[in-house]
Structure formats: C-alpha cells, structure tokens
C-alpha cells in the first residue's frame, strides 16, 4: 500500500459549468452513440439496410431493361418513317432514335450485335431479337402500332379521313387523376422507414433502460445525474443514430433511384419526401420517451418485450392499414382520423399525403398536433420513468407509476 503515491487531483473545471444540465445530458447521449455505433451489430445492420434499400429501388428498374434511348434500325426509310420512329419513342414515354440501315441483312446483323434494339421494315414488319413473353412494349410496341397505322392510311382509301376523326375513343375521367403509383411507393418507403426506425430504436431504448435498471447501474448514475437528464440523454443519443441511419437510407434511395432510372424517384414529389422527413423526426420524438417509460417499469430485461407491446400497438395497426391505402384508391374516414392522432400520425399522414388524399395544410395541422402530443407524452414519460427507475421487484403497474409520481411531484 503506497500512501505516498497520491491520486491525481480531480480536474474540476468549475463544477457548476462542467456539470451543467445540458453538458451532462450530452455526456449521456455521447455514451449511447459511441457504444452503439461501435458494435458490430450496428455496423452490419446498417450495411444490410442500405443494401436492401439500394436493391429495392434499383432492381426493378434494372430488370425491366436499360433506360437509354432505343435505337431503331430502319431499312429503306425516309424522313416520314424516321418521324414515326421518333414519335413512337415520345408516346411510349422514352426516346427512340432512327438508325438508317442499308439492307435488311445489315439491319439484322446490327440487331444481333446489340447496336439497335429493333428493326423497322416500313410497310412490312418490325424485327426484334427475341419477342418477350407478353409481347413487345415501350417504344417498339408503340412503333408497331404507329407504323401499322401509317401503312393503313397509305393502303386503304378513306382511312386517312377516318384517322383524322380518331380511331380510338377519347378517354375521360370523372375525377382528377390521383397521384401516380410512384408517389405512393415513395410514401410506402417513408412509412417503412418510420416503422422500422421507431420499432428498432424504440425497443433499443426500452432494453437499454431495462439494462440500466436490472444491472443496478442506475443508482450509481442517479447519484451524479438527474433522472430527466439520463432519460433525455439516452433518447437523444439513440435518436442521433436513428436519424443518421434514416438520412443514409434516403441518400441511398435517391442515388440508387436516379442511377437506375427507377420510376420511384421520377414520380416522387419533393413534398412527399419532406413530409416523410418531418414525420420520421416527430414519430421518433413521440415514441422515444414512451419506450423509455415502458423500459423503466421492469426489473428484468427479459420483461421488456411485454411492456413495450402496448406502446407498439398503434404503430402496428396503422402500418398494416397503410398497405390498403397505398394499393387501394383512397383512404377511408377511419384512416383519415388516424392521420391526426399523435400516436398514429407519423405513419398515417405521410401515406395520406403521398396518396393525394390530404392537402398540405392538413399535413401541417397534423404535424403541429403531433408535436403537442410529443410534449405531453414526454412529460408523462418522465413522470413514469422518475417514479419507476429505482423501484425493483415485480413489474410496476402503469397506473401506480403515474399516480405515485403525481403524489410526489
């Protein structure tokens, strides 16, 4: 035992400053970030999520073929035929470029070599390398129709006049067209992110608090830190990780979407993305404290699952109903109501907006309601947490936790 070997003097930079509430909260948050970001689980799950997002966006576009302009070989064509080719590309929603070929043999060679994607022999036929199941589509399909029509006009007397009056019936809708499928899919992507982030990180919060309570480290912590600092620090730290992952997923979504020419990003309006971002933050803010309170009710980590179930329930119901809204046309009254309730709005509102069922001002109202609900939830959760975090033994009844905290508050 060496009494001479004195302990280093504590570097107490003026304690009131160093120990300020915000600084302490930040220290708690930083521990969460450092400890969790370092784990292999976090790195691997983040990587898997990002790859999954990239594949989900890019695969359909890649599988449906390239998105560059179609090069159409034309045998013995003229300006009029080239015009038909260009027009067909436009009508199909893409681009088609006529390439004049000297002979049919040369054209077929170019087709085999992949230099052109189809060959038009005016007045006769269209040749593709292989007829896909379900027939040709896109520029080539439209070209087949247009070229066929122009032949009809040339060969059948009076056909030109008939075509002038239109060969197909006009299409008219009773209602303005609803938002495109791609906008809805962007909405779906948003709710999947909201759902995954809240459930994954919410249960991490609850488990983390259950761990602090069951390992009894909380008593050491509370000798230096106020309960509310511990709670806020924890949800902030985990929130930073959650938000970081969300931002990474959105970036991958956008990059993969544009790189593959996926219709997901072409149809997505900026509004849907912004609404999604707002509700990801609001949803996390609303649920993080609720999960923390649920975690504080148990003494053993294994009991956490049973207390977070009621917290997750509104999310699960809304998430399941979202699919009906996205794939069916329009939402029912019930789902509209869910869009304005703070616990369900973070999922329901982005879906309603993406599906074109609500105007922007209603999204704003819902966001304000959700923010107010978040404040209310945080206050309630802090009460429950403060009252439960040091009580060990059997699971604490929720009513007990609220009542007694009122009593002492």
């Amino acid at each position, binding site marked *: 035992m060496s*009494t001479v070997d004195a302990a280093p003097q504590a570097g107490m930079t003026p*304690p009131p400053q160093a120990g300020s509430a915000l600084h302490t909260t930040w220290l708690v948050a930083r521990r969460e970030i450092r400890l969790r970001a370092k784990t292999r689980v976090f790195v691997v799950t983040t990587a898997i999520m990002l790859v999954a997002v990239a594949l989900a966006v890019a695969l359909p576009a890649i599988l449906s073929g390239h998105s560059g302009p179609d090069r159409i070989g034309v045998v013995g064509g003229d300006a009029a035929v080239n015009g038909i080719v260009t027009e067909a590309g436009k009508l199909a929603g893409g681009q088609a470029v006529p390439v004049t070929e000297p002979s049919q043999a040369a054209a077929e060679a170019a087709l085999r070599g992949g230099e052109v994607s189809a060959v038009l022999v005016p007045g006769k036929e269209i040749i593709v390398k292989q007829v896909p199941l379900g027939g040709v589509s896109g520029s080539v399909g439209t070209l087949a129709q247009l070229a066929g029509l122009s032949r009809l006009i040339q060969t059948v007397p009076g056909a030109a006049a008939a075509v002038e009056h239109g060969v197909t019936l006009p299409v008219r809708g009773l209602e303005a067209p609803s938002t495109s499928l791609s906008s809805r899919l962007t909405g779906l992507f948003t709710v999947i992110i909201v759902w995954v982030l809240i459930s994954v990180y919410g249960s991490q919060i609850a488990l983390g608090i259950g761990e602090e309570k069951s390992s*009894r480290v909380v008593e050491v912590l509370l000798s230096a830190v106020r309960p509310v600092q511990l709670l806020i620090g924890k949800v902030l730290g985990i929130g930073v990780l959650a938000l970081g992952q969300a931002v990474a997923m959105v970036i991958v979504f956008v990059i993969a979407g544009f790189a593959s020419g996926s219709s997901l990003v072409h149809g997505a309006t900026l509004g849907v993305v912004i609404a999604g971002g707002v509700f990801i933050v609001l949803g996390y803010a609303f649920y993080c404290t609720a999960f923390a309170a649920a975690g504080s009710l148990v003494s053993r980590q294994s009991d956490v699952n049973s207390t977070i179930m009621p917290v997750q329930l509104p999310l699960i119901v809304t998430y399941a109903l979202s699919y009906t809204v996205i794939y069916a046309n329009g939402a029912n009254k019930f789902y509209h109501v869910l869009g304005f309730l703070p616990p369900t709005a973070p999922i329901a509102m982005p879906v309603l907006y993406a599906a074109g069922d609500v105007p922007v001002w209603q999204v704003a109202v819902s966001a304000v309601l959700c923010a107010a609900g978040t404040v209310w939830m945080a206050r309630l959760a802090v009460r429950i947490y403060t009252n439960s975090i040091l009580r060990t033994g059997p699971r604490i009844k929720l009513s007990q936790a609220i009542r007694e905290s009122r009593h002492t508050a």
Partner: protein
Amino acid sequence: MRRRYGAVTALDGLSFGVPAGQVFGFLGPNGAGKTTAMRAVFGVTKLDGGEIRWRGRPVDAAARHGFGYMPEERGLYPAMELLDQVEYFATLHGMDPRSASQAAAYWVGRLGLGGRERTRVDALSHGNQQRAQLAVALVHDPELLVLDEPFSGLDPGGIDAMSAILAERAAAGVTVLFSSHQLDLVENICEAVAIIYRGRLVVAGRVTELRRGDQPRLAVRVAADRAAAWSAGLAAGLGAVESVRPDGTAEISLASAAGSQAILDLARAAGPVEHFAYEDMSLSEVFRQATGASVGQAEAEHASARSAGVTTGAGR
C-alpha cells in the same frame, strides 16, 4: 431524517454528524435504515422530512458532484469496457476529458486491475467487479466517500485491502462514511461510528469510548496469584472486583478511569504483572446493551417483518 415506505418506517428521526477527514462507520443490523439514509445523501431516496447537510449547507446536485458512491446493490454497465466505464463516471462528476482519462487509468492500476482496461465489466471476476465499483466511486477524487456495505462478500485479504484504501483516503483528507451490519468486523477499521436501529440512532461516538462504556473494566493478572489475592487491597474508591477467572485474571470495574494507574501500582507491588488491559466491549455488545436485543435477534425480526410485508404487498 424521516422516511416511510407505506406502513414501514425506514428512518424515524435519525440524526447524526460525520466528522471530516475520518473513516466513519455507519452500523446497525440489516433493516435498520442504513441504505435508505445513504441513498438520501445522493437524493436517490427522497426524504419525507429532514435534510442532509454538507459543510453546513443542504446537499444539492453541485455538492453531490464532489461525492463518491458505492451502492449496496453494486451496478455497472455490463457490456462496457472497464476503463471507458470508469472514465465515463469521472466525466459525469464534472471532470474534463483529459483528467478523467488520467484518473481512470490511475485508479484502475491502483486497485490492481491493470491489464484489464479493455475487458468488458461482465467478463471480470466478482472480486474485480467490486474493485471496478470502488474505482468508479473514487475516480473523481471525492471529498466525501459513501460506501454501502463495502466489506460484504470480501475475503479477509479483500477486507484488509479495502480498509487500507479507506484509511488512505481519510489520511488524504477525504471523509469516508461506510455502512456495515457486521458490527464487530469493522471495529478496528473506523475511528468513530453511529449505530442505528429501527431508523433511530442508538449510540454515536469514537469507537474506543463506546467500547469502553460508562463503566470501564480492567483485566489484571499477577504472576502465580491464581486467586487474585492482590486485589484484596483494592480500595473501594478505585474500583470493585467483579469476578476472578480460573487463570487468576481479576475483572475490575473502575470507579473512574483515573484510578487505573493506582491499580497497576497495587498489582505490581504484589508481583510481576502478566496482563493489564481494558476489557472493552465489542460493538455488538454495545448494541445489545443499548437496545436490549442482539444484532442477530434484530435481523431475524426484520426478516420476518419483511416476508410479512411482501405477502400483504402482493395481496393488495
């Protein structure tokens, strides 16, 4: 200090002072209210009445930054590496990052945990977890150290090492307050104690004075005097012989402490003095004398009251 848990009164007007720069024992049988009182120091338990003062001022969050705490229910983050953990608690107590990491490294080494800096706490042995817990309590160089049952679960070597560290901190000016329900185990470890029972103070004071009691007793043996015949000459004003042991040791209750040297002179006149010492009570005897119950009885009573309490609690 007052605190009730439902029908159970944990602290019933308990009040005592701890002298600065000493190792102070806070003793009492299990269930006496020691842990409740120590938690109250850190605001972990809220008092129904009363207050804790440090250097004359009520204890607040700023004061607690200068306190170190080792709770009875030991607790550290199981999945966190040892050094990170000690460092983390240092920063929570207001240390800047550099001094925190220096102090953490110092205490980890000082407590014999060198080489395990990067070990997760749950991979440490039980004894090493105890040391890690102590490092967390010590790392920010607290001016008050509060340790709840620091000796429980330690082997004799561990008890020696722990008491050496407590003595060292007290010598460095730190006020050390520790609790124990093993009254006799710690009587040589602390200078002064407060003994409590049922949430109330039984006695407090310096250990030597408490053990000597109001009526100090001497044990004196003179060589080859099996009947303690020398003591026949003892004047009534000095003391009275209570009993004579088979080996000839006379147990004498002193009339006043000042008379001890006169008795020694008397014994030496009769022959060579083989044994001359105060017959001090053990602290558990002090407890029994003051409460009329032994420590064991008190703990059995607490245990049965607690099991009854659990049954009614579940019934509610």
